[in-house]
């Protein structure tokens, strides 16, 4: 039984020799020069990584910092990155030019945020399709978000254009409104008539001629086709939807006739809504300056919607693993304003979303476009009211779109959409969901006996928690003025109007409503315990009644009396909720997040780098690959020696310096001569007599046939295989290409006293047996490597594993184990007959029992 194994081994050794002679003879490129360059890149890479980590720490909320720090540390970071890319480009012969462009793009964004004044654009109108986050200051948050979705596969956005913040500035100036706004800033809290004054002036203002012409041109281009649809005119303030949601704070005018007069009126209406009590209260609460908000306005073609809805890509009430989808007939206004008992779906969030819960609402009302513009709330035709709005296919389509959008915008999103007659979905808006940790608001333990329950409601929590106060039931929006501080708001519908009282509300209960409404997102932002859709709260509670409300998973319990000891979240505001902090920290979004995680994906490209961290990740992957490939292609010099080991591993070594202690001209070395720290550790493990089996383990019939075929591939003289069993070493470095039997291993590692330099990169592939056994072996190796702290990826039978930032002592220990594992796994396929055996052999290996 041992003959084939010996034959194979000698074959490979011979092959290695032959290949080695070939490459060493033909090419004398200087691997040392390449390695030196690699070291330069590595040093800069590590410096960059340290700087990023330091910035992340200083901006984590544990330090008080200022703009001087941000400017200095970013300048330094950028300098390191520029040097890194220039050295990297030398190493890779300028093969990844896109990286420089990405660095430039990111740099532009960050500097804009730091200086807060990027180059002001002169565009008065911008097509929606070219609105991007990079033009946030021109097009506002909402339109920048929406425009950026237009490029995503499977996502449709409506046609339209954006009237920019530059137009807004011109409009305000042209009509002498700037001084009026200044006065408003000073007196709005004492003189509510001031808002009216500014709004009236805006409504009677005229567009500056240049703005007028720009809008007229864009409008004509938009309506210059067969579909002369009406328009939706939407607010898109700067600051809006990027940092704080401002959900429902500003006007949206729906179904605007596509003529200049109607559009101008709608534009002014949206601009005027900036100067109203709601957003000013909101700004005061979150600590931003209302005078700094500028308003861009989106003019978007209305979708002829049969149905509309809202998708939450993560359930903000403590179940981020689920998505929520609400749908209703007609326009989405009914859903976001909570005017309808919409269909509600809960979908498990995964690569293949699946339905968890379905509730078909009684949608007795719907909002539709009115003939001459505007919208009306009408009765839903009786046969439709209780019918599901969307079918399963559309539901999954919506879920998949939400995943795409969330991935693109990197955080959970609240997505408004519309469906036309053909069932096609158009995304109308996406904005981040204010998902707050609920822990602070967690209900405290209530002694059950001491409290009198006067009512329980089932409903949907928008935010869990406990609040206590006097019941206040508004009969008209105006009556909100009488809302008592600390009151419990009880209302028929959920309405974003309530933001006026939210800073003072202890809890909110509404008869109708959805957790995806504007009000619900504001409640989360203001941390007000809120239950929506609770049936008949307005009928069962009375004005002035003193109650304590506990909002839980599936409903609310109302206790008699005010029990403040049960309320509040104790923690108070967190640093993360400070407006100034978030504003400053915002730039980290271009630096810290890592999106580029999978080098096996097609989009692992320079172009896909969205952050400095991505660039760093890309550089690290490719710098190691550069070395690996150079080694595989035999880029080497003549200082190669044959390594004599107690086991027939057939390894040829090239020493770059300090890796082997040998006299000049020597052609063989024993293990004792190896002074490369990582290589020595590895071969000590590999040659452990227990781990290196000399007996051939019995293959089953099928394995043998598969094995014979592979054997033929490998030993055929014409076969193209990478240089087998080649180690390139220095005192601190090892790059090993190893072929044992059918297993190909590549190991690249750096092991120095400075842990930040250190890494092990491990790739394992091949195998003589069928795919099931190979994947079992892959899992076994994964199990073991994970125990040592590696991060592993498996693709088919290929494992890639990495570990970095570990001390040299720990690392040599790991390398010793990895050496044993390489020896041990040579014949492993043959014994992994069942899935259960994977766990068994993993355990025995880890326990030092290498018997097969």
């Amino acid at each position, binding site marked *: 039984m041992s003959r084939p194994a010996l034959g194979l081994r000698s074959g490979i050794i011979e092959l290695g020799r032959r290949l080695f002679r070939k490459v060493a003879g033909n090419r004398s490129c200087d691997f040392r020069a390449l390695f030196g360059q690699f070291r330069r890149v590595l040093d800069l890479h590590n410096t960059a990584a340290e700087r990023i980590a330091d910035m992340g720490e200083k901006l984590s909320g544990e330090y*008080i910092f200022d703009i*001087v720090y941000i400017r200095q540390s970013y300048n330094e970071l950028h300098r390191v990155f520029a040097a890194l890319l220039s050295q990297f480009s030398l190493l890779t012969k300028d093969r990844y030019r896109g990286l420089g462009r990405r660095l430039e793009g990111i740099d532009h964004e960050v500097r804009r945020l730091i200086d807060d004044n990027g180059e002001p654009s002169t565009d008065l109108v911008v097509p929606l399709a070219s609105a991007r986050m990079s033009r946030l200051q021109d097009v506002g948050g909402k339109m920048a978000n929406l425009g950026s979705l237009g490029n995503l596969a499977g996502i449709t956005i409506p046609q339209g254009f954006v009237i920019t913040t530059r137009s807004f500035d011109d409009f305000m100036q042209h009509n002498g409104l700037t001084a009026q706004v200044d006065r408003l800033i000073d007196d709005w809290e004492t003189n509510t008539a001031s808002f009216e004054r500014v709004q009236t002036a805006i409504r009677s203002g005229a567009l500056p001629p240049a703005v007028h012409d720009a809008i007229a041109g864009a409008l004509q281009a938009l309506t210059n086709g067969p579909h002369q649809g009406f328009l939706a005119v939407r607010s898109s303030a700067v600051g809006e939807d990027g940092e704080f949601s401002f959900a429902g704070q500003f006007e949206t005018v729906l179904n605007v006739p596509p003529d200049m007069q109607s559009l101008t009126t709608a534009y002014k209406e949206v601009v005027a809504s900036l100067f109203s009590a709601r957003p000013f209260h909101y700004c005061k609460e979150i600590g931003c300056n209302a005078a700094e908000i500028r308003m861009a306005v989106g003019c978007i073609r209305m979708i002829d919607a049969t149905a509309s809805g809202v998708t939450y890509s993560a359930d903000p009430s403590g179940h981020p693993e689920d998505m929520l989808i609400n749908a209703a007939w007609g326009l989405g206004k009914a859903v976001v304003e909570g005017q309808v008992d919409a269909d509600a779906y809960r979908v498990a969030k995964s690569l293949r979303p699946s339905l968890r819960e379905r509730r078909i609402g009684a949608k007795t009302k719907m909002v539709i476009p009115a003939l001459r513009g505007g919208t009306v709330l009408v009765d839903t035709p009786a046969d439709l009211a209780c019918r599901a709005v969307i079918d399963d296919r559309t539901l999954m389509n919506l879920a998949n779109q939400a995943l795409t959008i969330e991935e693109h915008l990197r955080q959970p999103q609240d997505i408004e959409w519309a469906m036309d007659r053909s069932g096609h979905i158009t995304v109308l808006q996406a904005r981040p969901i204010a998902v707050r940790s609920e822990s602070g608001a967690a209900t405290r333990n209530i002694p059950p006996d001491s409290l009198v329950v006067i009512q329980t409601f089932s409903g949907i929590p928008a935010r869990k928690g406990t609040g206590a106060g006097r019941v206040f039931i508004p009969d008209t929006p105006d009556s909100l003025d009488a809302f008592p501080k600390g009151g419990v708001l009880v209302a028929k519908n959920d309405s974003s109007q309530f933001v006026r009282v939210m800073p003072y509300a202890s809890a909110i209960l509404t008869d109708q409503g959805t957790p995806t409404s504007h009000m619900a997102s504001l409640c989360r932002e203001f941390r007000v315990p809120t239950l929506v859709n609770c049936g008949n709260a307005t009928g069962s509670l009375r004005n002035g009644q003193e109650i304590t409300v506990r909002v839980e998973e599936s409903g609310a319990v109302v206790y008699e009396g005010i029990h403040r000891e049960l309320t509040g979240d104790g923690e108070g505001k967190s640093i993360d909720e400070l407006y100034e902090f978030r504003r400053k920290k915002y730039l980290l979004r271009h630096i810290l997040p890592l999106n580029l995680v999978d080098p096996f994906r097609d989009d692992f490209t320079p172009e896909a780098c969205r952050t400095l961290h991505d660039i760093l990740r890309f550089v690290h992957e490719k710098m190691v690959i550069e070395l690996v490939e150079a080694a595989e292609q035999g880029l080497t010099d003549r200082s190669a020696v044959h390594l004599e080991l107690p086991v027939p591993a057939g390894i040829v070594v090239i020493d770059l310096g300090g890796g082997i202690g040998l006299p000049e001209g020597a052609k063989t070395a024993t293990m004792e001569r190896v002074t490369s720290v990582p290589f020595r550790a590895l071969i000590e493990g590999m040659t452990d007599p227990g781990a290196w089996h000399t007996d051939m383990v019995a293959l089953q019939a099928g394995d043998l046939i598969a094995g014979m075929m592979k054997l033929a591939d490998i030993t055929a003289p014409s076969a193209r295989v990478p240089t087998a069993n080649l180690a390139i070493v220095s005192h601190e470095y090892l790059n090993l290409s190893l072929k044992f039997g059918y297993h190909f291993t590549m190991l690249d590692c750096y092991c120095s006293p400075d842990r930040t330099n250190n890494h092990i990169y491990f790739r394992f592939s091949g195998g003589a047996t069928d795919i099931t056994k190979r994947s079992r072996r892959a899992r076994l190796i994964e199990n073991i490597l994970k125990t040592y702290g590696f991060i592993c990826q498996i693709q088919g039978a290929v494992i890639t594993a990495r570990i970095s930032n570990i001390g040299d002592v720990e690392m040599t220990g790991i390398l010793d184990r990895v050496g044993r594992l390489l020896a041990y796994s040579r014949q492993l396929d043959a014994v992994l007959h069942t899935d259960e055996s994977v766990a068994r052999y993993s355990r025995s290996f880890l326990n030092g029992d290498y018997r097969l």
Partner: protein
Amino acid sequence: MSRPYRIMIIDDEKIVGDMAKLSLEKDGYEVETFLNAAPALERLKAEQFDIVVTDYKMRGIDGMEVLNTVKRLYPQIKVIMITAFANLDTAIEALRGDVHDFFPKPVKIKELKASIRKALTGAA
């Protein structure tokens, strides 16, 4: 019960005052923040403070002037100085002006709190 300790923060960057106020209020201090020194010194005439935390480099009245004024008029108040432009000269200058503590920015909040606690127990 005696009144809570009162702390004044003077820094021309809003974020510094905001972050300090939020963190210190959690520990039960009363905190007032000022973006420049003139109104802050005015406020000291009306209200008793235990600690003044001031930026070093500010437009108008700078941190050294705040330190000297406070030490002259209200010697019992402890002054903590923070600066983005930390170097030996500024530190020596501040120490000569009898500063209680001196931090380069970014300031670790924990360390600032520890320094404040030390200033207050020393004062008690």
